[in-house]
């Protein structure tokens, strides 16, 4: 039933329309203008055609930054899924103090990434850090967590996993609770092992959660910025320079607005395609 009253709907959605035009549609359109210009904000814009693109294609550092970001993702996502799923399985048993355990695992999620990074910078410290003092006691070795070109990005990935895993534990817990009990009971009668039940019942049943977790952590991982910004400044030897950190520098250290917008545009395309591909793969893999 449509009434005159429903016209009030336009008034109610007006804030969205204004916000969308000003903060989404206009910037989107303007980014198409920017990518063909050279501009430092202060002097007038300079039309440069496709030269931002040719610059991008030859920009070794940008591709290194993308590669670094991918290294981060390749370590961070599987590690996070394995730990989160394992802990969620444990918490999903009949246990006491489940609320307490869940709350303690979730704690780093609510705390600012700035705090986590400052804290871990000290935990990773070469000589005085907790991690190395523990390693010395247990194995008699120290690792150059943040000073080695090979280890710095994995170190950041481990820290990010520690920070975020609590969220994914909770998401998986919600997913696990949707799996009907009778399916496990039926499998028990057939004499299925723990692993078989996990592989053939749990995993397929929580596929929607898996898709969500992979996508959220991919999008989050691609925006990696503050952790290397604080912890390593992108070093050593640009090994932790993330794509966002590089774009940030192009824009706000060098004021290459046109070029930074081009990088942002190109990078957004990558993010979008990766997420799309992931979605297709996970959806296909678990048809059973």
């Amino acid at each position, binding site marked *: *039933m449509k009434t005159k*009253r*429903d016209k009030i*709907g336009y008034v*109610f*959605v007006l*804030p*969205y*329309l204004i916000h969308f035009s000003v*903060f*989404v549609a*206009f*910037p*989107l359109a*303007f*980014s198409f203008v*920017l990518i063909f210009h050279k501009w430092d904000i202060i002097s007038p814009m300079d039309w440069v055609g496709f030269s931002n693109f040719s610059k991008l294609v030859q920009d070794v550092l940008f591709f290194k930054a993308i590669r670094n970001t991918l290294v981060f993702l390749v370590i961070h996502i599987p590690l996070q899924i394995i730990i989160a799923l394992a802990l969620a399985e444990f918490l999903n048993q009949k*246990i006491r103090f489940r*609320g*307490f*355990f869940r*709350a*303690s*695992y*979730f*704690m780093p*999620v*609510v*705390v*600012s990434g*700035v*705090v986590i990074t*400052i*804290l*871990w910078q*000290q935990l990773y*410290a070469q000589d*005085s850090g*907790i991690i190395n*003092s523990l390693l010395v006691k247990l194995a008699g070795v120290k690792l150059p967590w943040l000073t080695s070109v090979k280890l710095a990005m994995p170190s950041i990935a481990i820290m990010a996993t*520690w920070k975020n895993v609590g*969220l994914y534990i*909770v*998401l998986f817990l919600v997913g696990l609770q949707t799996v009907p009990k009778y399916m496990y009971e039926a499998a028990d009668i057939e004499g299925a092992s723990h692993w078989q039940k996990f592989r053939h019942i749990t995993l397929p049943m929580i596929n929607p959660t898996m898709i*969500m977790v992979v996508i*959220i952590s991919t999008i989050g991982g*691609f*925006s990696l910025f503050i952790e290397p910004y604080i912890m390593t400044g992108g070093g050593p030897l640009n090994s932790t320079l993330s794509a*966002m950190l590089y*774009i*940030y520098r192009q*824009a*706000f250290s060098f004021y290459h607005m046109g070029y930074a*917008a081009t990088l*942002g545009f190109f*990078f*957004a395309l990558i*993010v*979008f395609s990766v*997420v799309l591909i992931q979605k297709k793969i996970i959806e296909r893999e678990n048809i059973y």
Partner: protein
Amino acid sequence: MRKLVFYLFLIFWTIIFMYPFLWMISATIRPEAEIGGFGIIPSKITFDSYEKVFEKIPIFRALLNSTIVATSVTLGVIIFSSMIGYSLARHRFRGRNLIFGVILFTMTMPFQITLIPQYILMVKFQWTETFLALIVPYLVNTFAIILFRQHFLTIPQDLIDAAKMDGCSEFTILFRILYPISTPAIVTVGIITFMAIWNEVLWPLIVIHEQHLMTLPQLVTIFVVGGQAESLMGVKLAAATMLAAPIIIAYSIFQRYFIASMATSGLKG
């Protein structure tokens, strides 16, 4: 025996997640020379690190700034998103489905694409170095709109019809009749928005450069990165602890709501 191993395993992970925080707090009240190593029991308690922080940066000003910004955005998001969500759920008007489609589409759009143009917009509006840049772009949030829309779809039409019969305006229906029975949705949107804005640091770094306008995470970041902390571990950690404290306190009291809200969103803080 099996039970014992099971609980020891769970406790092991609690230590993994909690111990670093305890260590951090303990490090901030120890003399600088004693920080490091594994222990957390201070031989002597000192507040030197905190005094240094107060001396060097306007941290309470930043706390106030963050509170103003996060509170304004949260209130704005709740009001606007509930209006928009209510309308998308309950009003029938031309273009409604189109708007909903646009909202779903913009949710999938990576923010990297509009970051630079949005900054330029702030420059043109002359909003840089003001709270407007920190507040206005965040006032409408697509995720909150969807959440409110889903929520208002579950309200019985009879209730709305009855209110209309009584001559209530649409605003009265939303804010006086639906709000009191929508606490879970409001709390969820409130917690997620407040946390996201409180912890946001990239955007403030871009649009604010004057120290007295900086938000708390931004000020602490600049303090640590910019060398003002003189690579004193205790001082850096004291600043970090002050940044973490408000959220940790809120979390210890309302942890159920925090976890439930974040679980519905899957959003990162």
